[in-house]
């Protein structure tokens, strides 16, 4: 998209301004505070509905409503209207955006869908570069640079996805740990029922087969819930018969735990004092908080066998991170043994509470027909709930100490609070004496029924664990492969940007930096940017390079990104006073760079530097009619510009008004500008002045003298090559040039530099006209009629090679045969 014409009304410092860049580059120059940046802001606003300058750091109190609109205007009358041209769309397109409704862009000439790709790129800000923005790439912290680049590349979605996948993998890992504990608890239920210390398949099969034998059934060899009662023809005869033996067994579990209640309490209180001890020592607590993380990190480093930190993804030197983590883990060895002992205590408590909790539930179930159980049903349920609460409090005592302490009440009153101790002791006697006794077969059947239920729970816990592990495996794979793909694609992208950047920078700095290389290295959330310093290794760009070099680096990286992101979509590039620190010689290279490497872009450049502006014009980046000077600004009018006419038009206009002093002043000013440029382009010698001020009386004769000298050298060269035709042509050219020069009467008014201005200003219209014409004829002596560019001296090293214009139409060889 290119801007053909634009009207800016009551935006920032602009009252009303109409510009006609015609899809070509545009340069606005003028002193600070003349409203140049207002044009940039207006274009920015048109494309994005925002003004970048009013956003970002240090702009909290700024807003579009109060600071985007001209200070004396209402937002209703504040708008930007532009006619633009878009490749592949026939006809002109009109865009209007009003400050009153900044989110609405009125479009005529194409659909919103057709415009969307352009607006999407614009909204990321890849069309505008100010000095402030420039430094974002160069001096910014790696993390900030990464964020800036991520915004430009629109890769926040990538980081969001990665974070999500990491989070899910983490949650799945936690889930696996929970499911492992659940499986362990299911095993505890089984071992407590068969009254074994450890869970072993063989012992369990023995228990099952003994009971199957009692029911005259063959033993089984596979430990599966579906097999436990397989092929048993036995049916329990007396339904509702109370299995006193089983009740006594569960009652015994409770009393066994009760016998250990003091140990349980001591263990519980021991845990609390250890936790307090850890929490009161900041070093220990810090080490504790990091310990499981370090262990997990160490496992990942061992498994993946690479040197990337699994947390921040920074790449470490070979084995350095692993050694670092190892040392950290060694340092916390003492804590490790405390934590191990703590975990054992917790396991002991958990086992106890699980057995009691299960026994209570079984007693309630098995003893349902019994009056003694019925009477205490409510208390028993409450007690079961207390135990359950207590079990829950056993999770993460260090991080949830307060919650854990709540359990202290429960453990102290575990058996006392409901006066159940005596109750169970009485039940022990009662259950043991219970009649009728269940038959061995009924007992075996009940045993198999219980164990079947418990094995089912165990199988379910095992299945859940398997599913959990599978989910974890899938989540880890998804996350890992996503990161691998991301790294490959982003590295490729960064490589292409850094290559483009290096090429641009070398083009800009020429021979100084022939071997210049840059590196953009993503490192976790950061993006390191390092550049070669004259073959002495790579360093951050702001470490050793000058401010000017940093500026050109910022510009080159912006242009490299622009090429990648916006090429063919948004051709407009706004450069807002960005070459302040780049020296004159490199600015000339910059002109070539903009012209040759970005021919399809429309650059809109603001500068307060007249020389840079002239360079842009003389190097053909911008045509004379697209150079705009803002020479003054006030609140009522906004910028005062000389945009409307070419020099000759404006002088003629003034002559028409018989305003000779102003016409003379304009001619004088522009002639000085012109010959200053010519002196520079032809490397003419002028007497040195400490003030740095060179007037026309000095610039014009010396530029002309050097021009003649070069033409004479060109003639000598033509002679050496025996090019008679060219010699004649040069002679003619020299003769015409001399005649034109005489017509300017330079000798007359150039004698006294301090009065020459008045000499012109005091002329009448008829006297001034021929001087004006002579001056313009003289300008044209130096200018190519084809490309409108000035001739310039080209050298190979220190040796003059030719005098030619930018397009080569005027080309005088200076090398002799």
């Amino acid at each position: 998209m290119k801007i053909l014409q634009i009207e800016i009304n009551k935006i920032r410092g602009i009252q009303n301004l109409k510009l006609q860049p015609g899809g070509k580059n545009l340069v606005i120059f003028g002193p600070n505070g003349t409203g140049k940046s207002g044009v940039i802001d207006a274009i920015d606003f048109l494309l994005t509905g925002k003004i970048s300058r009013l956003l970002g750091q240090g702009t909290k109190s700024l807003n579009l409503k109060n600071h985007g609109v001209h200070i004396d205007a209402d937002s209703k009358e504040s708008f930007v209207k532009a006619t633009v041209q878009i490749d592949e769309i026939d006809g002109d397109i009109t865009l209007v955006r009003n400050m009153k409704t900044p989110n609405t862009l009125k479009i005529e000439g194409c659909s919103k869908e057709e415009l969307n790709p352009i607006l999407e790129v614009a909204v990321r800000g890849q069309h505008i570069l100010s000095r402030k923005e420039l430094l974002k790439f160069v001096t910014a912290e790696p993390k900030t640079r990464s964020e800036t680049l991520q915004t430009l590349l629109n890769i926040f979605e990538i980081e969001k996805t990665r974070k999500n996948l990491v989070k899910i993998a983490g949650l799945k890992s936690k889930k696996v740990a929970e499911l492992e504990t659940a499986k362990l608890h299911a095993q505890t239920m089984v071992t407590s029922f068969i009254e074994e210390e450890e869970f072993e398949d063989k012992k369990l099969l023995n228990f099952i087969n003994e009971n199957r034998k009692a029911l005259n059934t063959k033993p089984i060899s596979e430990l599966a819930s579906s097999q436990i009662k397989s092929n048993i023809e036995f049916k329990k005869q007396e339904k509702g018969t109370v299995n006193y033996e089983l009740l006594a067994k569960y009652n015994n579990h409770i009393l066994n735990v009760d016998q250990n209640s003091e140990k349980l309490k001591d263990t519980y209180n021991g845990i609390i004092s250890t936790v307090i001890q850890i929490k009161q020592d900041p070093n220990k607590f810090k080490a504790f908080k990091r310990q499981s993380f370090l262990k997990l990190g160490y496992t990942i480093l061992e498994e993946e066998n690479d040197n990337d930190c699994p947390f921040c993804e920074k790449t470490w030197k070979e084995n350095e991170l692993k050694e670092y983590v190892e040392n950290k883990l060694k340092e916390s060895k003492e804590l490790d043994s405390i934590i191990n002992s703590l975990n054992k205590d917790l396991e002991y408590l958990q086992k106890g509470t699980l057995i009691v909790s299960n026994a209570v539930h079984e007693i309630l179930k098995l003893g349902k027909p019994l009056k003694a159980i019925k009477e205490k049903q409510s208390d028993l349920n409450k007690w079961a709930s207390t135990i359950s609460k207590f079990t829950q409090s056993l999770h993460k005592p260090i991080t949830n100490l307060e919650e854990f302490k709540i359990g202290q009440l429960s453990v102290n009153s575990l058996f006392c609070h409901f006066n159940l101790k005596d109750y169970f002791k009485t039940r022990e006697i009662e259950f043991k004496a219970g009649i009728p006794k269940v038959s061995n077969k009924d007992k075996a059947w009940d045993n198999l029924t219980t164990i079947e239920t418990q094995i089912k729970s165990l199988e379910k816990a095992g299945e859940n664990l398997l599913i959990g592990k599978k989910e974890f495996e899938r989540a880890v794979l998804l996350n890992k492969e996503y990161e691998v793909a991301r790294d490959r694609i982003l590295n490729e992208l960064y490589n292409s940007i850094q290559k483009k950047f290096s090429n641009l920078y070398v083009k800009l700095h020429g021979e100084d930096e022939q071997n210049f290389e840059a590196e953009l290295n993503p490192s976790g959330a950061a993006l390191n940017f390092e550049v070669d310093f004259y073959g002495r290794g790579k360093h951050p760009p702001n470490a050793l390079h000058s401010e000017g070099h940093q500026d050109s680096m910022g510009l080159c990286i912006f242009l490299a990104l622009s090429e990648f992101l916006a090429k063919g979509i948004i051709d407009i590039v706004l450069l807002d006073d960005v070459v302040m620190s780049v020296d004159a010689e490199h600015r000339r290279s910059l002109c070539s760079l903009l012209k040759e490497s970005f021919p399809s872009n429309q650059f809109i450049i603001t500068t307060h530097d007249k020389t840079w502006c002239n360079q842009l014009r003389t190097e053909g980046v911008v045509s004379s009619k697209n150079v705009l000077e803002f020479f003054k600004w006030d609140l009522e009018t906004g910028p005062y510009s000389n945009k409307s006419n070419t020099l000759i038009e404006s002088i003629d206009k003034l002559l028409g008004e018989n305003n000779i002093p102003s016409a003379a002043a304009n001619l004088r000013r522009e002639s000085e500008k012109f010959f200053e440029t010519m002196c520079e382009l032809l490397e003419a010698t002028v007497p040195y002045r400490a003030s740095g001020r060179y007037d026309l009386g000095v610039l014009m004769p010396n530029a002309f003298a050097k021009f003649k000298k070069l033409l004479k050298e060109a003639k000598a060269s033509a002679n050496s090559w025996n090019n008679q035709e060219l010699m004649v042509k040069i002679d003619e050219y020299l003769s015409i040039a001399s005649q034109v020069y005489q017509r300017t009467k330079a000798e007359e008014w150039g004698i006294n530099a301090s009065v020459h201005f008045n000499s012109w200003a005091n002329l009448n219209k008829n006297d001034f006209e021929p001087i004006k014409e002579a001056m313009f004829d003289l300008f044209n002596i130096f200018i190519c009629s084809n490309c409108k560019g000035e001739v310039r001296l080209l050298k190979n090293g220190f040796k003059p090679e030719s005098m030619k214009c930018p397009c080569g139409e005027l080309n005088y060889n200076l090398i002799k045969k």
Partner: protein
Amino acid sequence: MKSIQEEILKELFFTLSKSKVFTKEEIDQFKSLGKQDKLSNQKDVEDLIKVQIQKDENSSN
């Protein structure tokens, strides 16, 4: 402009299709989530992982 996320996902799905941990249907569902920019949504991704595991179970049964 090329979507970098799209390119990453293209490569990711190609790798996943070779890993055999995910079925073709599952990868298609991931692709669909990717197109809707929902791979950054925890519930969507978790559901997809969970549902697929259950399907695995059914198929093995």
